[in-house]
C-alpha cells in the first residue's frame, strides 16, 4: 500500500529544477505511526543513491559499496582487497595518515571500511553540522587514497598477526578447511585476509592498481540516512564520487556449486564438539527464494521455535544453540546447520539433526509452522532492518544491490504470503536430498561413525 499524503511535490520539484536531478519518492508504510520514506536521488553526473531523510537526530549516515571484494584478488596476491580496506583512513590526497586521522577525530566522525568476498563497503557517520568537511575526507579516501609505505606495513603486519593468531585455533582452521573443501580452486576458497605468503607479496603499486580497477561508478551503490535533504544530497554525490572512473574493470568470477557429501574433521581435545552441516542453497533471484527463506525459518531460523532449536536444545538440552542459515552469495549458495555440544554427545546430536532433516525433507512442515514463519518473517523486517540509521542505510544498499526495487518493502509481505505449503515442501526436498558436507571440530573419536 502506498500512501501519498506525505508526498511533497514541492520538494520534488525544487530538487528537480535546481539540481537538474531526478528524484523519485516512495513511502513505505508499515502498520504503525512511523514510516520510512525512501527517495531515489540521481545526481547530474548520473550517480544514483537512495535516501531516507530524517531530522530527529543531528547526524548523517553514508553507506556505500563497490561490487568487487576478495573474489577480485589477483592470483598470488590474496588478501589485497582486505589490506586495501584497512588503508582508507590511513592517508589520502595531501593528508598523510596522521593528518587524515587527526582531522577525522576533530570532526567527530566515524569512518569504517569492510570487505567480504563480493564487495568492499564503507560506512561514515557524521554530525550534520560539519558534514561538508567530513564528506571532503570521504571524497579523498575514496578517490585518492595514498597507500604510503609506513601505514601499508603497519596494517599489513596487523593483519599478519591476526592470521598467525588463528594458525592453531581449531575453530578458525575448521572454517578455512571447510571453505577449501567446498570451493576447491574457486576464489571463494581463499580467506578474505589471504595467507602470510600472499599478503607479504602485495606492494603499494598493487594497491593503487587494484583501487583504480575496482573503485568506479558502474559498481557503486549508495544509501544515505539522516539530516540531509534530496537537493543537498544531489550535489554531494557528484562532489564525493563524481571523480571516480566510469567503469570498473572486474574480472569474471564463475558461479560454483559447493562440493558436498564429504567430511572434514579437525581433531582436537576440546570439551565441546562444533558441528556444521552444509546443504545446497538458493540464489537471491531464484523464484523459490522466499520458499527457501520460510523453510529455513522453520528448520533453524532466528526464532526460538524452530525445529532444530526445539529438538536439540529445548527438549534434550544437547546444546546452547542450534540454528541454520541461508548464505546467498553472488556466485555460490548454501544452507548451513550449526551447533556445538559436549564431545561425548556429538553422535547423539548429529542423529537428532538427521531426524529433523529427514522429517522436513520427507514430510515437510505443517501448515501451522508455515503460518507462524510467515508472520514472523513479515513482522521482523522493520525490527531487523530499520531500527537505526546504520541499519536503514545498510538496507538501502542491499535492496539496490539485489535489484529488488524501491517499492520492495511494500511488496514483500505479498511475496511471502504467496508461498504455499507445497512450495515449501518442494524446496525442502530440493535442498535436503543431497548428503551434506560435514565439519566436525573436536576429539577424533566423537565424530559420526563411518562419515
Amino acid at each position, binding site marked *: 500500500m502506498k500512501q501519498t499524503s506525505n508526498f511533497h511535490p514541492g520538494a520534488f520539484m525544487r530538487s528537480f529544477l535546481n539540481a537538474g536531478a531526478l528524484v523519485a519518492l516512495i513511502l513505505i508504510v508499515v502498520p504503525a505511526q*512511523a514510516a520510512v520514506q525512501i527517495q531515489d536521488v540521481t545526481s547530474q553526473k548520473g550517480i544514483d543513491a537512495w535516501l531516507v531523510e530524517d531530522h530527529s*537526530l543531528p547526524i548523517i*549516515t553514508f553507506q556505500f559499496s563497490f561490487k568487487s571484494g576478495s573474489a577480485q584478488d589477483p592470483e598470488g596476491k590474496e588478501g589485497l582487497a582486505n589490506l586495501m580496506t584497512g588503508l582508507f583512513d590511513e592517508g589520502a590526497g595531501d593528508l598523510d595518515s596522521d593528518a587524515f586521522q587527526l582531522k577525522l577525530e576533530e570532526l567527530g566522525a566515524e569512518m569504517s571500511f569492510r570487505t567480504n568476498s563480493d564487495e568492499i563497503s564503507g560506512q561514515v557517520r557524521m554530525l550534520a553540522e560539519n558534514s561538508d568537511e567530513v564528506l571532503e575526507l570521504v571524497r579523498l579516501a575514496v578517490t585518492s587514497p595514498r597507500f604510503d609505505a609506513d601505514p601499508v606495513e603497519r596494517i599489513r*603486519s596487523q593483519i599478519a598477526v591476526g592470521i598467525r593468531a588463528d594458525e592453531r585455533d581449531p575453530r578458525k582452521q575448521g572454517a578455512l578447511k571447510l571453505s577449501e573443501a567446498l570451493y576447491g580452486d574457486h576464489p571463494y576458497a581463499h580467506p578474505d585476509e589471504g595467507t602470510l605468503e600472499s599478503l607479504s607479496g602485495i606492494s603499494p603499486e598493487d594497491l593503487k592498481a587494484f583501487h583504480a580497477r575496482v573503485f568506479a561508478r558502474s559498481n557503486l551503490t549508495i544509501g544515505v540516512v539522516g539530516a540531509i535533504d534530496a537537493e543537498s544530497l544531489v550535489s554531494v554525490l557528484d562532489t564525493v564520487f563524481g571523480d571516480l572512473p566510469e567503469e570498473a574493470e572486474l574480472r569474471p568470477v564463475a558461479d560454483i556449486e559447493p562440493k558436498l557429501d564429504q567430511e572434514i574433521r579437525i581433531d582436537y581435545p576440546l570439551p565441546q564438539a562444533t558441528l556444521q552441516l552444509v546443504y545446497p542453497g538458493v540464489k537471491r533471484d531464484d523464484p523459490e527464494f522466499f520458499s527457501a527463506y520460510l523453510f529455513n525459518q522453520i528448520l533453524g531460523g532466528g*526464532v526460538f521455535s524452530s525445529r532444530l532449536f526445539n529438538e536439540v536444545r529445548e527438549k534434550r*538440552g*544437547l546444546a546452547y544453540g542450534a540454528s541454520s542459515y541461508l548464505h546467498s552469495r553472488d556466485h555460490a549458495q548454501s544452507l548451513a546447520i550449526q551447533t556445538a555440544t559436549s564431545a561425548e554427545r556429538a553422535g547423539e546430536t548429529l542423529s537428532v539433526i538427521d531426524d529433523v532433516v529427514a522429517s522436513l525433507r520427507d514430510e515437510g512442515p505443517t501448515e501451522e509452522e508455515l503460518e507462524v514463519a510467515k508472520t514472523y518473517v513479515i*513482522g521482523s523486517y522493520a525490527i531487523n532492518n*530499520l531500527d537505526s540509521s*546504520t541499519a536503514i542505510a545498510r538496507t538501502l544498499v542491499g535492496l539496490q544491490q539485489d535489484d529488488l526495487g524501491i517499492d520492495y518493502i511494500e511488496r514483500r509481505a505479498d511475496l511471502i504470503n504467496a508461498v504455499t505449503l507445497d512450495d515449501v515442501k518442494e524446496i525442502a526436498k530440493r535442498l535436503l536430498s543431497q548428503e551434506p558436507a560435514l565439519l566436525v571440530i573436536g576429539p577424533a573419536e566423537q565424530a559420526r561413525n563411518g562419515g
Partner: protein
Amino acid sequence: MRNSIASVALSAAFALVLAVAAPSIAPAQEGDDDTAVSHFTLENGLEVVVIPDHRAPVATHMLWYKVGSADEEPGKSGIAHFFEHLMFKGTSTYPSGEFSAAIAAVGGSENAFTSYDYTAYYQQIAPSELPDMMRFEADRMRNLVLSEENIETERQVVLEERRQRTDNVPSSILSEELNATLYQNHPYGIPVIGWQQEIEGLTHDDLKSFYDRFYTPNNAVLVVAGDVNANQVRTMAEETYGEIARGPDLPSRARPMEPEQKTTRDVTFRDPRVTVPNMSINWYVPSARRAEKGEFEALAILSEVLGEGLRSRLYQDLVVKQGIASSAGSYLQGAAYDYSALVIYGEPRGEAELETVEAALVAQIDKIKSEGITQQELDTARTKILRDQIFMRDSQVRSANLFGAVLATGGKVEDITGLPERLDAVTVEAVQAVAKRYLDMGHAVKGYLLPEEGDRS
C-alpha cells in the same frame, strides 16, 4: 542467542556506561512531551523510563531486575543466570513456549542477559504489540512454573553454554581466572555464568527462593524505547505490571568489599592454540556510584586519552610510532554497583617480544601519572564521549540498555542527562590525580595469554 551473559561483552559495547547523554536529551520529566525521556514510578514500586523515538515503527520493551551474580549466596554461583534461562519455561497462565510463539507470530525478537548487578529481558516488536508484551512479561514476574524436568534439561543447556563460551576459549579461561584474582573479596570475582560444580549443585529450592525474593515490581526497572509516548506507556504499564502487588522491601545490596590490595599478581594461561601472545594490566576502580564526586568522569577521560581509539596515546606510541604492537589500548568497564575495572592491553607485532610491549605500556602509565594530560587531550576526549552518546541515541536498544544499566546499578536518570555538565567540570589535574591514585603498579593484576612453554612460533 538467548540468554547471553552480559558481563564483559555488554559493558564493552556500551562503552562507558558511566554514561552520558546526547545534548538532545532533555532533562527527565513527567509528561507527554514527544521527544523527552520520561521517568516515573508505579504505586507498586516499578520504575519506568520512556525514551521516545519516532523514526521507525519499532518499540523496544526491556524489563531489568536489580539482581545479578554478585547478589548470589556463597556457593550458589550461576543462579542469577540459570534463572534467566528458566524464565522462558512457561507460567501457570501461559504454557512453555507461548510467550515466544506470540513474539514470533508478530515478527518480534527477544532475548535476555545477566550481569553482576542485573538481569534483563527484552523484546523488540511493533508498538501495537506493547500491551501484549507487558501482559506476558508481568505474568512471568509472578506465575512462573518451575518443574524439575525443565530445571534438569536447562541445566544441561547452561553447562553447554559454559563450555561454548568459556571452557572452549583460551582467552575466556584466562579472563575468568584473572577476574577471580583481581577481586580478592568482592563477588565480582565470581563468573556471572557460575563455577561448573556450583551450577551442577543448584536445587529447585534454591531457584524458587531466588525467584520469590528478587522477582518483584519494586526490584525492577521497565524501559520502553521507540515509537511510543509516555502517557500511553504509563497507562499500559499500570494495567499490566501495576496489577502486581509490591513485594517485601529488599535489604540493601551490601556486599563484601575489597580490602586494600597490596600485591601484584600475575595470571598466566598457556595453551597450544595460542600462537601470538598478549597481555593486559588490570586495576579495580570505584564504580560511578561509589566514586568520589568527579572521579569517575576523570577516569573516563583518562581511559579515553590513554587507550581508546587510533589517536590514543597507547595506540600512537606502541602501534604507530614504535611499531612494536599490533594492538594496544585501554577500556573502562561499564555501569556497576560497586566497582569498575580499568584495563590496558597489548599484543606484539613482528619480532617484538611481549616483554617489550609490556614495558612500553607501563612507561605510558608512568608518563601519564608524572606529567598528566594536556588541556587539548581533555577537550578532545570530552567531545568524543559526548559525540558517542549522540550516535548511541541512534539505536533504540543501545539507548534502552544505557538507561536500564544505570538505573539497575543504583544510578539516576540525571546521571545520564547531566553528563555534559559533569564532564565540563573535569580538569587536567583531576585526571592526573585519578591516574596516580588508581593506576598503582604495586597492586596491578597482569594477565598473560601465552603459547605452550618453549613454543615460539
